[in-house]
């Protein structure tokens, strides 16, 4: 392994001060630190030893937590295709097709995003942050498998430049970057990210009676037609497509990585056990959604509101949003009390948006973005309470 060290040692002088590629030092450094953990030591004063964790490892843990969702999403994208065209395919060809759909989206997202990160790091002369490693994976997971690749690239560029770098880079952004990408597409190119986009058909003909409607779209239809939503979901073109079990497992059309509540829960377990994600936020999003859905059940003003509360937890992107988006430490509340409030409100808002807003079927994205904006306000009051406690005991 010494030879890798030697290679870097050989090219390093070119990038250091006075070297011919001095300007690109941080691009070089990003690559070097990917292979070699740096040799810097602690200062002469203060903590002389450091915890083994660093930002790279923390971000990598999040990526590992997303892998179940990604793998399942790849299979499901293929599976939904063959289901929709009425063919029976073996596992290998389902995965293969899924991979040809998903991998290009991944590549576009990472190459556009990292390209921008490198450019900004060079211009601003700071280290390349690891934040985009996570964002680059999140963006593909919230896209439909049919999304045009140029749109992925455009959305990624928008999200990274406007959503993050404009605020100062990783750690400074107000809005969740991946959701900014999705929101951008939703408002800029609505026809490619809503409607019949959730199952890839290709050049094939869909089976008779095929409908691309997701449970969330059925909700809106149920309100309009004043029909029981549960019976509409039971009465799909493919039998049992929207049974509770397959909703929980995620064998349904939808965004690549967010259909499976089970895989999200596996990811949640990884995040919580490793302590990287906040269990308070994750739990409180689910709790908030369940409480609000129960309240809706009791009010029962329309058919969507009558959908049993536990169904709300498995349809749409609620689980994915709760686990991977709401718990983003940068855009969430940062105080421990605030995390409970923040998560709970996201959960409640999601359900409110779902059942009251027919124009916007997916509630979680808007709920998280909205609460991103309010997170500093929640923190402000929690911090103010802390200050007040101190002020109370003061005598002068």
């Amino acid at each position, binding site marked *: *392994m010494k030879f890798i060290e030697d290679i870097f040692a050989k090219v390093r002088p070119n990038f250091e001060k006075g070297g011919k590629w001095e300007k690109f030092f941080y691009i070089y450094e990003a690559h070097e630190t990917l292979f070699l953990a740096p040799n810097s030591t602690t200062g002469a004063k203060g903590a002389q030893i450091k915890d083994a964790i660093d930002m790279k490892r923390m971000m990598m843990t999040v990526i590992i937590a997303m892998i179940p969702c990604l793998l399942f999403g790849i299979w499901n994208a293929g599976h939904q295709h063959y289901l929709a065209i009425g063919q029976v395919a073996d596992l290998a060809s389902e995965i293969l097709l899924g991979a040809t759909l998903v991998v290009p989206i991944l590549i576009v997202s990472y190459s556009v995003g990292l390209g921008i990160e490198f450019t900004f790091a060079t211009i601003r002369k700071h280290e390349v942050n690891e934040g985009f490693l996570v964002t680059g994976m999140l963006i593909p997971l919230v896209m439909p498998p049919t999304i045009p690749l140029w749109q992925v690239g455009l959305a990624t560029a928008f999200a990274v430049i406007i959503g993050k770098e404009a605020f100062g880079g990783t750690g400074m952004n107000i809005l969740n970057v991946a959701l900014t990408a999705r929101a951008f597409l939703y408002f800029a190119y609505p026809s490619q990210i809503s409607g019949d986009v959730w199952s890839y058909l290709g050049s094939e003909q869909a089976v008779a009676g095929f409908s691309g409607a997701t449970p969330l779209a059925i909700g809106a239809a149920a309100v309009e037609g004043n029909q029981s939503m549960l019976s509409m979901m039971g009465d799909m073109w493919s039998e049992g497509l929207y049974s509770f079990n397959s909703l929980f497992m995620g064998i349904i059309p939808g965004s690549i990585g967010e259909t499976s509540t089970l895989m999200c829960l596996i990811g949640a377990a990884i995040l919580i056990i490793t*302590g990287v994600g906040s269990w308070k936020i994750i739990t409180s999003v689910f709790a908030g959604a369940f409480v609000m859905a129960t309240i809706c059940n009791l009010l029962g003003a329309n058919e969507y509101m009558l959908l049993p509360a536990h169904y709300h937890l498995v349809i749409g992107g609620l689980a994915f949003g709760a686990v991977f988006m709401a718990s983003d430490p940068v855009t969430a509340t940062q105080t*421990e009390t605030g995390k409970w409030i923040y998560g709970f409100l996201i959960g409640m808002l999601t359900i409110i948006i779902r059942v009251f807003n027919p124009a916007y079927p997916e509630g979680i994205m808007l709920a998280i973005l909205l609460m991103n904006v309010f997170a500093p306000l929640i923190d402000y009051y929690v911090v103010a309470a802390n200050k007040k406690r101190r002020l109370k005991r003061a005598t002068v």
Partner: protein
Amino acid sequence: MSQNIKLKKGFDINLAGKAEKKIGELPPAETYAIKPTDFVGMSRPKLLVKEGDNVKAGTPIMIDKLVEDVMYSSPVSGEIAEVVRGAKRKILEIRILADKEVSFESFDKHDDVKGVSKEAAIEQMTKGGVWPNIIQRPFGVVADPNDSPKNIFVSALDTHPLAPDMNYILEGQKKYFDAGISILSKLTEGTVHVNMDVKDSSDLFKSTEAQVNTVSGPHPAGNVGVQIHHLAPINKGEVSWTVHPYGVAQIGKLFLEGKYDASKVIALAGSEVKAPQYYKTYSGAAINKLIDGTIKDGYVRYISGNVLTGNQINSTGYLGFYHNQLTVIPEGDYYELFGWILPTTNRLSFHRAFGLLSFLGGKKKEFVLDTNNRGQHRAFVQTGAFEKVTPMDILPTYLLKAILAEDFDDMEGLGIYEVIEEDLALCEFIDVSKNDVQAILREGLDLVKNS
């Protein structure tokens, strides 16, 4: 009204190389040094001696021009060998070449310390070299004799990594400790608190003139700042004092024996020490004799103090005034292939992110840690971790951000008066973003102090 403080938050860093409870034999150090830099906040040190002067143990060496009453005295007798200066003629070290036999300046002896008046006590303490043991909160600077502190706190347990056992380094000094407490109790209208480990069954610290409280929990439970927070928190405008038990005994000795005795038992500890144990020496001793033949071969770092709050010194350096241990750990300036992601069980981590399996060894497992930074500096991203190792009602992340923004109101509101570096040292250790937490905090303390 003794109290029990039970703390849950915190983290014990279990390092290899604990000092065994025996006193090793080594030739005494030849030179000793007083370093103005040891005394936080000392801005204008003024020398009272010249190179070549002869001094006794207890002879004043320097003063701080801002608090002229307090003498900083020579720990041993001998000749002022050298005054080492740095940039802008800043005094870095005053080196003393020690006599073979230490002779002492004589001060008043008191058989009954209870009869000493407050004024006489302050006078003798400031002249007799023991005053710098008294640290003022807020700010963690040497106390001003003109202040009247709300309370005085003594933490009789040290939970820092590889910290010396207080009972051991003060063995046989109960009468001096008691006398010291007696003197201290004259200096405050309030209470003298002595806080000891709940598991500590010795009666060394069980003083009658102080309120004896017990503390339990992981580090930083032994930090006096944490204990103050739970016993009588410091508000704006208030002053409390803290004294290390060694300092209490030294104060007691000044009054009972009439001499400034800077002898101390220190722990030589750390994974790179061949046989970690205790040694007798004097405050400010050169470490060269101490490390001669006792350290394993290899590239090591010498730390005066502990690995969380201590200072790096080189092999010809001197122990700090407040330090009771010398820690020796490996240097870590090496590259490591995929070091940021390889699973590991022998790198200690408070976190459990992917591959950090140090928790598998249980709480007893000892770790050999080096000085590698383990990553690069980043923006604040992770939240909630600092709060888990700070057993106080304080929001460290917000406090640090307030300091970085130089927001005085927020710094005050968020409790900067209650903490000094050591209280947030664990935050610095566990920080994913590798911020210099202690340096940032000191910056904030300086801002508030000088505003």
